């Protein structure tokens, strides 16, 4: 098996051998369940039913959850000295970075699997508009990929998990806020440029079910950029 998969598998087992996986899954199910129930309540009042607001809410959950998932990935290795094990083994920085990223991303995929019963219920007891469900699922995976890449990068910078977590959270929050000026000042060019860099603007477009290559490339390049930056940080360790 490909080395990054082994590293990713070790990370996933790590999540599930501590409380973090169970707490995150429980929180995730509770929040998504509450949102779903309130959507059903709104539909009972006569509003048109759509699952899109559910996925819109999940992005906020991701904002809080990603730092918790990624903060320990490399910072802990640095703090406990196991980074020495990784880099005295015949591994390249890419293998290590990819392994860590895939581990966090796979956990996000598990969380997404846990929300599959919502569209299933809708399909069973009503009419399901499949487009937005597919669009939102792909959008959430893209979003998780970019968030995790940023989280891995922040985790590679320091040996304190708390600092790595805050860095990740701050960065993601900032990326959300980049879309705000464009909403209040639609004519401002700078605001429009800033909005292009906001993960959430791209995410919102995909939610509706319209998958544009522009958005896919945005998420892919964002993920690649931070993974590449992580490998550079890891390599620079050698020269310090």
């Amino acid at each position, binding site marked *: 098996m490909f080395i990054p998969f*082994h590293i990713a598998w*070790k990370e996933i087992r790590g999540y599930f051998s501590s409380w973090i996986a169970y707490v995150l899954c429980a929180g995730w199910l509770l929040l998504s369940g509450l949102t779903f129930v309130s959507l059903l309540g709104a539909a009972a009042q006569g509003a048109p039913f759509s699952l899109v607001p559910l996925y819109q809410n999940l992005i906020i959950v991701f904002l809080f959850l990603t730092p918790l998932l990624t903060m320990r990935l490399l910072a802990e290795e640095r703090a*406990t000295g196991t980074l*020495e094990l990784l*880099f005295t083994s*015949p591994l390249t920085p890419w293998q290590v970075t990819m392994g860590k990223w895939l581990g966090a991303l796979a956990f996000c995929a598990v969380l997404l699997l846990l929300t599959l019963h919502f569209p299933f219920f809708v399909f069973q007891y009503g009419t399901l508009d499949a487009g937005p469900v597919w669009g939102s699922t792909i959008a959430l995976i893209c979003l998780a990929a970019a968030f995790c890449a940023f989280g891995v990068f922040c985790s590679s910078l320091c040996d304190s998990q708390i600092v790595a977590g805050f860095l990740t959270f701050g960065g993601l929050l900032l990326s959300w806020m980049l879309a705000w000026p464009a909403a209040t000042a639609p004519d401002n060019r700078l605001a429009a440029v800033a909005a292009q860099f906001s993960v959430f603007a791209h995410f919102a477009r995909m939610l509706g079910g319209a998958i544009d290559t522009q958005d896919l490339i945005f998420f892919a390049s964002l993920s690649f950029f931070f993974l590449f930056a992580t490998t550079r940080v890891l390599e620079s360790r*050698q020269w310090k």
Partner: protein
Amino acid sequence: MIEVEGLSKIYGASHAVEEVSFAAGEGEIVGFLGPNGAGKTTTMRILSCFMAPSSGSARIAGFDILENSLEVRRSIGYLPENAPLYDEMSVRDYLNYVAVLRGVPKSQRAIRLEAALDAGQLEHRADTLIRKLSKGYRQRVGIAQAIIHDPPVLILDEPSSGLDPRQRAETRHFIKSQAPQRTVLLSTHILPDVQETCSRVIVINAGRVVAQDAVENLAAKASGLNLVLARPTPDASEKLSRVAGVSAVRREPNGAFSLDLTGENDAREEIARMCVAENWGLLELSRRRANLEEVFLKLTTSD
């Protein structure tokens, strides 16, 4: 197996390691000795490719540490000062994971795992979580991970620090048992460990190699003579220092002299003859055998 040439590591203005050169042949156990902060760990980290040197080069098993870093890492087993362990894994899972990282083929993994468990005497703890192991057992897991891929070179950074005397003896026994198949570079400041296990010692102080030789030669070089005379003349020191084989003479109170020898020939006969000829009244002439501790202190104390 290990060839190091002019290795330096500079941090800003300070030299952690300066122009370090040494070599270790196949199957040799070499002790790397020095006070804390002398540059032992830095040198070992460079050899294990964790850090890059500022200048100089090193080859391990024929591979250059900068040009063939992956090959070098495949050829060494490295135990850092603090064993690099994942607390949440069991011993077996951990060793299996390390085997994967070190590139042990799947078909050999089970065999290597058993061999590593055996070498660390860990069979009965294989399914215990590492978090629950005592310091001694953690160190054994560290040793087991270093040999899991059957490397020709072992680099051990203070493998017996923090262990009790029995565990230290076991570690020494383990290191000695590696000798024919593997080259071992062992850093420590526990001198009896060196005396018992190493065929050769490299002494490093303030980033520089200050001595490298077989343990007994080092001790011989630092040994000397004690001489007590009843009527030494004022020029006695000078005359004694001219005897072949004497490198230094120190005059002490009450007619006592302390002589350092170069180690090449025994100067005792010539000194006795001189004492009689000069009528100094020879009261005592004895050999002073230095132990490794004295050699170590002498080499690493700068005055």
